[in-house]
């Protein structure tokens, strides 16, 4: 440990750069040479870079932990200066490309690289037969790189680079099999929906720069007091346009200025970004569609890591989030609503990955519910446990799909739960790990999900935000805790129900895939393409049985399943009930949330609530799981079928995801479409019709005129050339009586200099209209003379060229009349002082006041206006 700390000193912690750059190296090598390297080399590069990155993260974590005991909370690698931003009100702040790690980002980096490595390992087998194998690992490595930049970036702009990077990788991986229209469309949907969130993040960045004057984490926290000022958010200008045509009371209401604190604005925009990335209302619609990507991608990006970036962002900026109770309430409430809505949709889905996707949206809602009430470490703890059990579930689902696909050979049918069942018998490892993560997500006591979810629910009821010294118009409502808890509690019951439904439908009962295969008439030679499963021509059933996956796939499952079961011990707050206080994660994270926790208040009597809430949690699990067991096992799904038959419309509505996608289609996308159609119309008729047609007409007309000059006869061109050259020659030979006149009106010195020419000779009359004929031409090229104040003179010039031709020109010169009164001639006296002598008095012009005369010998200071400058 000591040697490591000496190798990587805390002020310049270069190890961070290695952690970040290794996956990038893997991506570059695989991306550029992957096609020629072959499968093994690509696997080695892809897995190796992430594994080493993970090991470095572990080292970083231990160094951080060790430093933490000595009081240091943060290790920084300062890269180079990115840009210098000028601030409003003067000054500038420089922005560095620098990385930093503290308890929060260190833990997150462990999750990303650790689970990332497991999923890389899993993918090496899952994607084995895919022709885009190397492309897949390029994207995965690039994703790990971007995610690490997002986590370890020391400022909001660096985070934003990673933020966009993971968005890009998500898009590339969702549309990985872009041959199918559906997958490409899902990728685009994810990318465009995320753009809306990114807009929010950009605006928040601008606001932070404006009000705090800093964008790096410590700078923001240090200057967060600047966010307390009130900002007028309405009306946008001085008044609402057209408000006067409305009835008076309405106009007054419209024109009343509304204010909000800058913190609220910043936090709401930050949350818009977080909601886009983390699939919260109203921007959650992209995540379920994102399941079009390969299953390991769903596990890594769309369950374990990328979608938690929004929670990470809120935790990272917790110090400014707590300054706005209103924004925090919006975060918590949105999270609760999303948890409920997504869980309700998961009830009616049959696609195993769709159920898991809505479950992810719902769990992300829980996390926002947690951080929204100020339980940052609880929300972040749920990020960790959710990464364990949801990655395990997705990989398990991938294993199931892998087995089903080997039998059914149809992507959609092999993901349909109605074709599964009884897989427990064929896939024991997958079953066991799935069971572990099922127990965790529904919250069976002792599992990781139990500890994290119940911590959130307890805090949702008992915590609220009240920032000292902030006089916000918003006050945390009395019913807030109850409402938030109720949403979370209902969500917990629903989670237990649909997850049990999924679990039973997949692994218990009879395998229902036989029928599909019986109808399936496959040519025998097709089996040759699938050497990963056993094929026996004498088997009675057509097609092979579902089978367990190879070790590369179930080992990650086993590790994640174990973590799903026991990961709760990282932060086992519920053990308080048996008198054990064991919350190492919360203590580790304490310095990160130090500024924020001052604003988090707890209702009275919260310490006695734990037994009640644990009882309620058990009730939720029992009701949800028991209900599902009764419906799908005891009555073999009779109740569900009867319900569907009784309310077919309602079932269809839930099955169609409450038709939110259709609503967006009609409103937002419809509006954009009509705008695009208007644009196309304007392009066709205004731009093309008028502007393009008119200019083409002009060009064509001019062209047909000028074409007449192009006769195609050499003689014609030559004649034009001869005439042109002769003209130029004539001009050069003819005499030109030009001259340069230099006039100095102040001193009265004037000169006229004739411009030179070949063979020229000159004669002058320095004062007269004409030059006498008797005078001879000579070499004198200039005349100069002085004029008195107000005097005028005419100078005549005649120029003769070598052929005896003569050109004449007259130059009229006049010196303007200037009032000389008060102008003083200044001389330096013998004693070094300047002395002024007034000019001889001339009759002053009427109407112009004369300056007071300066007496002879008066001493003038150096800056006096009468002293000539620069002489």
């Amino acid at each position: 440990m000591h040697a490591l700390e000496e190798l990587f000193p805390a002020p310049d912690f270069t190890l961070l750069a290695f952690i970040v750059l290794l996956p990038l190296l893997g991506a570059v090598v695989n991306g550029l040479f992957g096609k020629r390297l072959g499968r093994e080399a690509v696997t080695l590069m892809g897995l190796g870079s992430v594994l080493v990155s993970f090991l470095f993260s572990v080292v970083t974590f231990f160094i951080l932990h060790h430093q933490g005991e000595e009081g240091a909370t943060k290790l920084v690698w300062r890269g180079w200066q990115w840009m210098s931003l000028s601030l409003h009100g003067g000054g500038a702040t420089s922005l560095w490309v620098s990385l930093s790690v503290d308890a929060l980002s260190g833990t997150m980096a462990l999750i990303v690289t650790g689970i990332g490595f497991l999923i890389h390992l899993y993918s090496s087998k899952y994607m084995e037969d895919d022709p885009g194998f190397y492309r897949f690992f390029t994207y995965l490595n690039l994703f790990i790189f971007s995610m690490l930049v997002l986590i370890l970036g020391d400022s909001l702009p660096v985070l934003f680079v990673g933020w966009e990077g993971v968005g890009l990788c998500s898009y590339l991986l969702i549309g990985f099999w872009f041959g199918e229209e559906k997958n490409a469309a899902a990728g685009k949907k994810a990318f465009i929906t995320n753009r809306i969130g990114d807009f929010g993040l950009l605006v928040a960045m601008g606001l932070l720069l404006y009000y705090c004057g800093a964008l790096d984490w410590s700078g923001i926290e240090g200057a967060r007091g600047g966010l307390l000022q009130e900002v007028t958010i309405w009306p946008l200008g001085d008044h609402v346009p057209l408000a006067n045509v409305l009835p008076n009371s309405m106009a007054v209401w419209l024109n009343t200025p509304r204010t909000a604190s800058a913190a609220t604005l910043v936090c709401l925009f930050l949350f818009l970004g977080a909601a886009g990335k983390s699939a919260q209302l109203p921007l959650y619609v992209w995540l379920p569609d994102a399941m079009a990507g390969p299953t390991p991608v769903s596990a890594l990006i769309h369950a374990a890591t990328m979608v938690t970036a929004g929670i990470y962002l809120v935790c990272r900026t917790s110090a400014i989030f707590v300054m706005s109770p209103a924004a925090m309430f919006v975060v918590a409430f949105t999270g609760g609503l999303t948890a409920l809505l997504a869980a309700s949709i998961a009830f009616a889905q049959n696609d195993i990955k769709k159920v898991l996707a809505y479950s992810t949206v719902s769990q992300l809602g829980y996390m926002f519910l947690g951080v929204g009430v100020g339980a940052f470490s609880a929300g972040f703890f749920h990020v960790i446990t959710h990464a364990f059990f949801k990655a395990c579930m997705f990989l398990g689902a991938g294993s199931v799909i892998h087995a089903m696909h080997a039998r059914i050979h149809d992507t959609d049918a092999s993901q349909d739960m109605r074709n599964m069942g009884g897989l427990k018998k064929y896939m024991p490892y997958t079953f066991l790990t799935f069971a572990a993560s099922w127990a965790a997500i529904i919250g069976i006591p002792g599992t990781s999900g139990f500890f994290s979810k119940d911590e959130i629910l307890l805090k949702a009821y008992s915590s609220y935000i009240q920032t000292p010294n902030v006089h916000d118009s918003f006050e945390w409502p009395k019913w807030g805790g109850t409402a938030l808890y109720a949403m979370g509690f209902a969500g917990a019951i629903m989670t237990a129900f649909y997850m049990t439904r999924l679990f039973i439908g997949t692994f218990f009962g009879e395998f229902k895939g036989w029928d599909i295969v019986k109808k399936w008439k496959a040519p025998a030679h097709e089996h040759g393409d699938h050497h990963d499963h056993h094929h026996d021509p004498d088997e009675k059933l057509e097609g092979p049985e579902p089978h367990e996956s190879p070790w590369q796939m179930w080992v990650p499952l086993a590790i994640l399943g174990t973590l799903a079961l026991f990961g709760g011990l990282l932060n086992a707050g519920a053990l308080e009930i048996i008198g054990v206080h064991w919350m190492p994660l919360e203590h580790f994270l304490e310095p990160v949330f130090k500024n924020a926790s001052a604003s988090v208040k707890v209702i009275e009597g919260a310490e006695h609530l734990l037994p009640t809430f644990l009882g309620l949690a058990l009730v939720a699990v029992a009701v949800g799981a028991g209900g599902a067991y009764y419906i799908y096992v005891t009555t073999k799904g009779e109740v569900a079928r009867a319900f569907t038959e009784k309310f077919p419309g309602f079932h269809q509505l839930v099955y169609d995801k409450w038709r939110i996608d259709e609503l967006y289609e009609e409103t937002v996308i419809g509006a954009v479409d009509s705008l695009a159609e208007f644009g196309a119309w304007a392009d066709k008729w205004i731009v093309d019709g008028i502007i393009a047609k008119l200019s083409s007409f002009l060009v064509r007309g001019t062209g047909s005129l000028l074409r007449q000059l192009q006769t195609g006869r050499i003689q014609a061109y030559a004649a034009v050339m001869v005439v042109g050259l002769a003209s130029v020659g004539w001009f050069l030979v003819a005499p030109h009586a030009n001259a340069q006149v230099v006039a100095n009106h102040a001193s009265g010195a004037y000169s006229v200099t004739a411009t030179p020419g070949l063979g020229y000779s000159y004669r002058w009359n320095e004062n007269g209209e004409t030059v006498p004929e008797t005078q001879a031409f000579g070499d004198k090229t200039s005349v100069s003379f002085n004029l008195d104040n107000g005097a005028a003179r005419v100078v005549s010039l005649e120029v003769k060229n070598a052929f005896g031709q003569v050109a004449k020109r007259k130059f009229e010169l006049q010196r303007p009349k200037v009032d000389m009164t008060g102008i003083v001639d200044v001389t330096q006296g013998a004693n070094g002082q300047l002395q002024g002598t007034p000019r001889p008095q001339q009759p002053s012009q009427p109407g112009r006041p004369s300056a007071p005369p300066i007496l002879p010998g008066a001493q003038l200071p150096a800056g006096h206006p009468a002293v000539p400058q620069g002489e």
Partner: protein
Amino acid sequence: MNILGNVVEHYVLLSAVLFTIGAIGFLVRRNVLTQLMSIELMLNAVNLTLVAFNRRYIGDMNGQVFSFFIIAVAAAEAAVGLAIVLSFYRLKQTVFSDEADQLRH
């Protein structure tokens, strides 16, 4: 001191006459070969001018050297020009410049 004296006017006049003959010849004749000869005439008129004016600057041979350059370049130009005339003749079976109007049509 020399038999030609320092009078350049005669040479310049001769050169002007030669140049004019060449220019008119180029303009009025349709035969490309004749046109090339007219160009040579104009070039030689220029050479004559250069050499004649060089007489005015004793010890400075720039004008004469320059005219050698012109003679060399004119030889090269004549070679290229004749080659063009030859291929033009192969193309059109004629050497009249009126016929060289493919870019227009």
